[in-house]
């Protein structure tokens, strides 16, 4: 069995960073969790309106932004996401009345916590995008991709093992 397993873990933590940097043409991976009723539909509208944005964004549909367990966000970072976005209806417009009001509290607290742990603020964002805001959807996606590109690959919270098995 490998002795490398015994390597000090701090090295393993940066291994993800190194591995990502080694990719010749690094492109950030951004996971966007969008609520079905507003933001996902906003994404659909961006599509129907052919509003281009970078393909780095990959959307996962959730019924409501209040379905967003912070563990999903950490999981994405652990498995190599360079940025994570949660998008929901504007406060007051929640399909389920109050979901995004709760999200605002939950994810504000969580965002500050992971920033406290050392994650750059740009890497985790929450945005309100309505179903009629196709333009905003594509703009947010462009802005976020640019911000993450400027930051470079994320090694923090990332699991060094993931790249080995993938």
């Amino acid at each position: 069995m490998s002795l490398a397993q015994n390597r000090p873990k701090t090295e393993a933590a940066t291994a993800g960073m190194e591995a990502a940097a080694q990719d010749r043409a690094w492109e950030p991976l951004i996971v966007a969790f969008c609520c079905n009723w507003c933001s996902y539909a906003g994404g659909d509208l961006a599509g129907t309106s052919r509003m281009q944005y970078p393909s780095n964004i990959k959307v996962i549909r959730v019924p409501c932004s209040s379905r967003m367990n912070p563990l999903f966000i950490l999981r994405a970072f652990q498995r190599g996401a360079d940025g994570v976005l949660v998008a929901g209806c504007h406060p007051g417009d929640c399909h389920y009345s109050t979901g995004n009001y709760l999200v605002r509290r939950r994810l504000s607290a969580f965002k500050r916590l992971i920033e406290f742990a050392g994650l750059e603020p740009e890497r985790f964002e929450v945005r309100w995008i309505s179903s009629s805001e196709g333009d905003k959807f594509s703009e947010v996606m462009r802005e976020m991709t640019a911000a993450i590109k400027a930051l470079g690959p994320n090694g923090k919270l990332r699991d060094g093992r993931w790249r080995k098995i993938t």
Partner: protein
Amino acid sequence: MIKSIKKEHLAHLWERLASNGPLYLPVKEGPALLFKPWREGAAVDLETVSSTVSPKEVFLPRDEVYMQFSRAGQKLELHPAVQEPAGRLIAFGLRSCDLRAVELLDMVFCRKEPVDEPYAARRENTTLVALACGEPDPFCFCTAFGVDPVNAPGADVQAWWNRDDLVLEAETARGEALFTLAGELLAERNAVDRPERPATTDFSLPLEGLPKRLKERFDDPAWGRLYRSCIGCGACTYVCPTCHCFDVQDFGHHARGQRFRCWDSCMYKEFTVMAGGHNPRLTRKERVRQRFLHKLQYFPENYGVYACVGCGRCLRSCPVNLDVVQAIRALGGETVEQR
């Protein structure tokens, strides 16, 4: 062969010894003392008697990969874990209790078939340097289990302090190889007397005939009193030099992943949960009893020796001060404590 080195030159020695492979030694990390591979600037502490966590992870890492798997369509494929060439390890500064514990782990993992290959490989490649204890910690009670704080059988090198000199005596060929590696950093020495054996805390433990008495007292109500303060964490098992249970888990995704083993603790309620949900050790009572009986009855029955070395780590680390001494006192005496 006896050699020595001045205390102030030790940093050079670490650098030299670490050049050939990881050099594990006690390093101060925050308030904890941990066996870690030496790195430039590491706060090596050879004074404190016992490390917070035992050095067992040198041989039994907290996690290690067994194999990899991948899946395409309906087909599942297994692949060996990526092997990296085995290198030499040096574990420096283990105490006599730690050495005794290594011996116990050997009994479990490599003295009998089936041999645990990853453990055996590490053990085979490791040079063990024992360090004699000066003044023991109040938690130390190793002498109760027949451990000699200044003399550790099984070590490749036995070291002890002589004022500001660290004196080292090679006991094996591996120990001599270490001297060769250290080269000019170690000075030739004439024989130096080993330090006197210090007194450790005397808890007056009734160890004579203990396994037999415990066996009779499996259902004693005293267990029902003893366990209550246990909060069910795994601190005692993880700091313990002889606890060696592990779990096997997967990491990855259903398309690809790896299977690894990692430390586990019999104090966790999930430890014995079976596939259908049944848990034979339903409450903390059964788990606490299991842990102490394993150390004090089952291990002696199987290997003829107690699986406690009196290092005192559980006395120090248990958040509620429930430890092996407590257990022996409550259930191990001529009569069972009635409260």
